[in-house]
């Protein structure tokens, strides 16, 4: 299974922001869309970093003042990206091993979407459930 089968049912909208956005505006954006991370894009639209809840918590815990700080100051950069043809299994392994939860999906420099670890786990679970469902129907109806 590839990432594109997850993106296909996620809708085309990706929430992005610029490095110059203030941290308080970025927090408002996360809250408004009920998301855990926002992709930071450069003026050409290519991902230059990611600002997640974790980044925000880390900076707050270090007593960094949000006032005056920008997304560029607090984001994680560079950000690991994936392509639509990447395997769900492999990306999930990488995310688990390297402990991140959001991956922007790009193709030839263009941002196409984002997948979360929740999306990947759900896809694996549905795949697994599907296989069980199929086996059961073969056994029960035989």
């Amino acid at each position, binding site marked *: 299974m590839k990432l594109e089968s997850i*993106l*296909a049912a996620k809708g*085309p909208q990706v929430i992005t922001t610029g490095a110059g956005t203030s941290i308080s505006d970025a927090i408002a954006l996360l809250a408004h869309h009920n998301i855990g991370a926002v992709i930071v894009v450069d003026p050409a639209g290519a991902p230059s970093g990611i600002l997640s809840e974790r980044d925000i918590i880390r900076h707050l815990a270090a007593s960094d003042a949000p006032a005056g700080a920008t997304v560029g100051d607090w984001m994680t950069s560079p950000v690991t990206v994936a*392509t*639509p043809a990447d395997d769900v299994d492999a990306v999930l392994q990488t995310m688990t091993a390297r402990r991140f939860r959001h991956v922007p999906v790009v193709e030839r420099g263009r941002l196409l979407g984002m997948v979360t670890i929740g999306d990947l786990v759900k896809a694996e679970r549905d795949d697994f459930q*599907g296989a069980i*469902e199929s086996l059961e129907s073969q056994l029960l*109806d035989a």
Partner: protein
Amino acid sequence: MSGGTPTPAALNVAIIGAGPAAFYAAEALFRDGPPTTHVDMFDRLPTPFGLVRHGVAPDHQKIKNVTKSFSQVAADPRFRFFGNVEFGRDLSLDDIRAHYHQVLFATGAQTDRRMNIPGEDLRGSHPATAFVAWYNGHPDFQDCQFDLSQERVAVVGVGNVAVDVARILCLSREEMEQTDMPRHVIEALSQSRVREVHLLGRRGPAQAAFTNPELKELGNLADADLVIRPEEAALDELSRAEVEASGDRMLQRKVDMIAEFAARPPEGKERQLFLRFFVSPVELIGGVSGTVTALKLVRTRLVASESGTLSAEPTGEFETIETGLVFRSVGYRGVPLPGVPFHERWGVILNESGRILDEASNEPLPGMYTSGWIKRGPSGVIGTNKPDSVETVAAMLEDAVSGRTFAPVESARDAYPATLESRGLRCVTFDDWCRIDAVEQAQGAREGRPRAKLTSVAEMLACLDAPAASSSQVASAAG
């Protein structure tokens, strides 16, 4: 948003397509929807079940047992089937809007994905989709011609569909006589001169898309030796690390099985099935007549992408397989439906978790939903469509409660089938299908196999309109 108040008064749902996604959705609607839920299911073919009938391999009859549970859904008095009705030709979105509260599109993936290499359209190069539809008796594909006088065939891709195609090409006559393939297909395949089938994977054993039971079956064919090059079966460093880190026992079993098959000496069977890895097609070479004569491949090696995926990188080393028959089994692809927003890049209906989105605003379009391969793309087994359809139905019921539906002007129960019949359409009901089914099974029983498929719409309709006593003659005439 329209002001329909569907619950609890009535919830009339149209489902377009009658494959697994459609039936799982109907099942969920009856289970979780208000008792007043009614489902009308339309398919462009007179026969239900989509790829279970026209995709699932004819030598895998047990898998088709799932149709029994679909038939139970169809037995619900709130269910109606309208076969032989095509959305976009016989039925429009306006028709649906006028008669239903909601529509769910479950039309599957009706075409093939392209490789985008030179020579792809030469004569003798076919999408696996066409070959599969032909051997499974799909009415639209019975005129296809495949040059089975070729001794060597290449099948591009190592997914389960590629494995099906390779296996069907290697079946013995006895094995074919136990399938439900149309008689003319059995005749054509048993006269085939194919001696070598080359199944081509562009990555390594650990990335092969086929599943273990399907691989095991390839190693146990009556008439064909499975041949794997030991050097291609061996895992490279990156793959070995990937398999280990995954802790995935099934994946470990797959690569072990491939290594075991590679070490096994061939038994000198009539045919040879070569399973190759690390080769990627770059060009189909044509002869003077515009027919393919060879397939040029580049050897590949694996490189890890940023996100950890191992993908194929060309090495610059080439090889050529002389062949006049190539099947491209690199995936299916959805086609757009009139009036329904489509996402070109993914080849699916534009949607978010099954809610169809407006192209301009990306907001959900009230009343419009999708599930199955046309929602998420062409991957997953039959059962995978169940959680997929359950997700969409949950959205449908949530929206129905809040009144975000179409506002039908007339009930579908009153308007259909009369409206369709007034257009000169011969709708096939589920009872009609049961009669077709009985005719096919009866003919199958006479031939000592599970079923003998009718392969033209005219034949199917003729057997419905014929007096019951003569339907067996229709079937034998068809056979």
